[in-house]
């Protein structure tokens, strides 16, 4: 077997951090070599060096045995590196053809031969069993289709080494299977694949070799047969418990009841279509589904942030449909918003300011129009200790906290009010394993205390582990309500792709 790629002693520093510390990595023809590690472990940095986006401070890259340090993305592309970014590098306004040929010299430069390009794109698509319309605008495509465009884009440029950065994060189980089939095809053609992920199970399924990174350092390279536990330990640096201990709690009275809710998205299209369900005291009710199927709009309607066109939201038997957000929150609803950096926190404000974002206008946080900073600081410090937020002081800006500590700050702010209902939207998204454990623990604690929890997640394993009951949402409609222990992952996957529960068997 011959080495397609060798990266030797790669070091990459950013101001204040060493993102990659003396890392070695190699790839052989027809192999999948995975990079496993938590967020911020340095996987993406290493691959950005390989794809020419970053320049390494030290170390060398060898392509097929020849030394080749890339000066630009173009340079890397010419040498057969194809990168499929986690956040697709596609321009929504442009067509598939335009996105694929962008930056490539045309035969009759600068004239574009659209027909020829379309033909070539179709050939690649057919060869690997992908279905794509070259003339479609990218914004009209589903996430899975966009990923296909990215892969075709790399292949069109003659990629021999394909880097897939967290490719499964946005896909349904069925789409993941299609992706894996395509990977098999590519391997048959002697291409090499670098697969980046933090999901241990799927990495073990697809890889030949696995390299684990942690905090910018290479922990080791192992065969794919390595035990899950061992990989997790390499990744996190300590032992990890995978199962969530869930006590049996009996449900109490109905806390939240939705009836035939309909609402529109920001484009004015119907995003929620006749959604009904109820959540009880002491229950975690999960909403599963691929991102962008109406989850955001649904939570916003309940929190009063979006107008419901039809139907009703009842909280403890009181109709709260289309009330002001503050009045809903003050009745005993707490909200962990979907994006902690955009709508959960004000990143430029410090911890204490963020902590009293909801209560600042009420005694004891203020005296009339004046804030009582002494009280607020003390109150914040109590919560910092109680929720184990790692920060130098309550005066630290939210921006400087790690993702996990930002989420803890939000949890502290929302849970200390002892809400009757907690709306938790992607509360573990982008967190590392340790922080995820913590969030789960807190959610289960809240459940034990008898709070009703509406839990939205796109991670199938997580939602099936945590929820007492769950609904699967697809294009704004509920495909069915199930108990996690009564269905298989595949069944839920089918529902996420638009199959109704009744049609399953």
């Amino acid at each position: 077997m011959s080495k397609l790629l060798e990266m030797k002693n790669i070091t990459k520093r950013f101001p204040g951090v060493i993102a990659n510390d003396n890392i070695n990595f190699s790839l052989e023809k027809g192999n999948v070599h995975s990079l496993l590690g938590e967020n911020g472990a340095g996987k993406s940095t290493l691959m950005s060096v390989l794809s020419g986006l970053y320049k390494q401070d030290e170390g060398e890259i060898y392509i097929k045995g020849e030394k080749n340090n890339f000066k630009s993305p173009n340079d890397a592309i010419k040498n057969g590196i194809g990168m499929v970014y986690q956040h697709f590098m596609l321009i929504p306004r442009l067509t598939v053809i335009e996105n694929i040929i962008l930056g490539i010299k045309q035969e009759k430069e600068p004239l574009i031969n659209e027909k020829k390009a379309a033909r070539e794109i179709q050939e690649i698509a057919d060869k690997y069993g992908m279905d794509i319309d070259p003339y479609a605008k990218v914004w009209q495509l589903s996430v899975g289709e966009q990923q296909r465009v990215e892969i075709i884009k790399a292949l069109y440029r003659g990629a021999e080494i394909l880097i897939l950065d967290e490719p499964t994060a946005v896909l349904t189980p069925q789409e993941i299977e299609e992706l894996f089939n395509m990977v098999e095809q590519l391997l048959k053609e002697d291409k090499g694949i670098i697969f980046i992920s933090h999901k241990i199970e799927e990495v073990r399924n697809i890889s030949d070799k696995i390299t684990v990174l942690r905090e910018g350092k290479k922990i080791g390279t192992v065969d794919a047969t390595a035990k899950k536990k061992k990989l997790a330990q390499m990744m996190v640096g300590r032992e990890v418990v995978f199962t969530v201990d869930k006590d049996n709690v009996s449900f109490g009275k109905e806390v939240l009841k939705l009836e035939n809710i309909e609402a529109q998205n920001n484009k004015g299209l119907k995003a929620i279509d006749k959604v009904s369900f109820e959540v009880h005291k002491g229950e975690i009710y999960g909403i599963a589904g691929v991102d962008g199927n109406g989850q955001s709009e649904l939570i916003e309607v309940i929190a009063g942030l979006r107008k419901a066109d039809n139907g009703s939201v009842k909280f403890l038997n009181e109709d709260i449909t289309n009330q002001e957000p503050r009045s809903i929150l003050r009745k005993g609803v707490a909200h962990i918003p979907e994006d902690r950096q955009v709508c959960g926190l004000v990143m430029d404000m410090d911890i204490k300011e963020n902590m009293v974002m909801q209560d600042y206008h009420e005694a004891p946080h203020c005296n009339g129009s004046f804030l009582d900073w002494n009280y607020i600081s003390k109150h914040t410090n109590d919560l910092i200790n109680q929720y184990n937020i790692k920060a130098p002081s309550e005066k630290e800006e939210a921006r400087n906290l790690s993702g996990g500590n930002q989420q803890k700050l939000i949890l502290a702010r929302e849970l200390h009010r002892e809400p009757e209902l907690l709306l938790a939207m992607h509360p573990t998204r982008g967190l590392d394993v340790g922080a995820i454990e913590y969030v789960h623990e807190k959610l289960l604690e809240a459940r034990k205390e008898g709070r009703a929890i509406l839990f939205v997640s796109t991670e199938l394993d997580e939602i099936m582990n945590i929820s007492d009951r769950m609904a699967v949402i697809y294009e704004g409609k509920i495909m069915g309500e199930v108990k996690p222990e009564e269905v298989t992952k595949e069944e839920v996957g089918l529902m996420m792709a638009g199959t109704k529960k009744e049609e399953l068997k």
Partner: protein
Amino acid sequence: MENILNLIQNLLIADFRTATPILLAGIGLIYMYRAGIVNIGVEGTMLIGAFAGSYGAYIFNNVWMGILVAGIVGGIVGAIFAFLIITIKADQIVTGVAINILAIGLTTTLNRILFGVNTSPPEIPSIGKISLPYLSEIPFIGRLLFNQLSMVYLALLLVPITYYIFYKTTIGLKIRAVGDHPKAADTAGVNVFKVRYWTTIFGSMLAGIGGAFLSTGILSFFTEDMVAGRGFIALAAVIFGNWNPWGVLGASLLFGFGDAIQIRIQAMGSNIPYQFLIMVPYLLTITALAGLVGKVNPPKASAEPYIKEE
């Protein structure tokens, strides 16, 4: 009946003339805007172009040399703007305002030094009319479309050319990509900085030439602050025209019509104070933009510097 038709024809002929500087600057702005650059300094660039064009024509005693000088000087102003906003990453709006203020001071000072104060303007060659044989004899549209100042034809020709460049060539594809998602363009191997530099320089050249048309086509001398907001109107025309050359042509003609009509009404000796009439094109601009709010779809990376991590 004949009179009304005559009046409309004259109005439209004047419209094409008053629309031309807006169209030239507007086309220039499309190149920049589509690459993600919002250059409100186009007002100042036009003013500098107006002066450079007038002075160039005077020195070389040839109006086309004047236009060439205006283009070059406009390009230099564009290069300075590009350096500030692309390389130094200064705020585009603030830098644009600075260019506008600089332009007023610079042209006023140079005008007084080079042409003197309180003297009647010197004889400067100006752009002539070109009558296209046969075509100009077609009733009504003949005089309208084929008996115009030569620069009007050039400006009109730029519309289909720009459309072709934007949608049929890799140059246009790169520009559109850079304005919407510079990082995606970068990873696809497009040199974002180069694209932004050249679009800014080329766009500013067109703005300079648009300014020169004011001082060598519509008038044949330079007056202080003679652009009088046409740069801003061009910016409005780009938004109104949805960043599309044909749309910008339509918007320029609409705004030019306002200008043309206000001159006519003034000349007729109307009782309405002329200050109100001067407002017409600006009112049209505001109304057009207000009616359009919510439907515009600007390039996604407008006015954002591209910061490349290395």
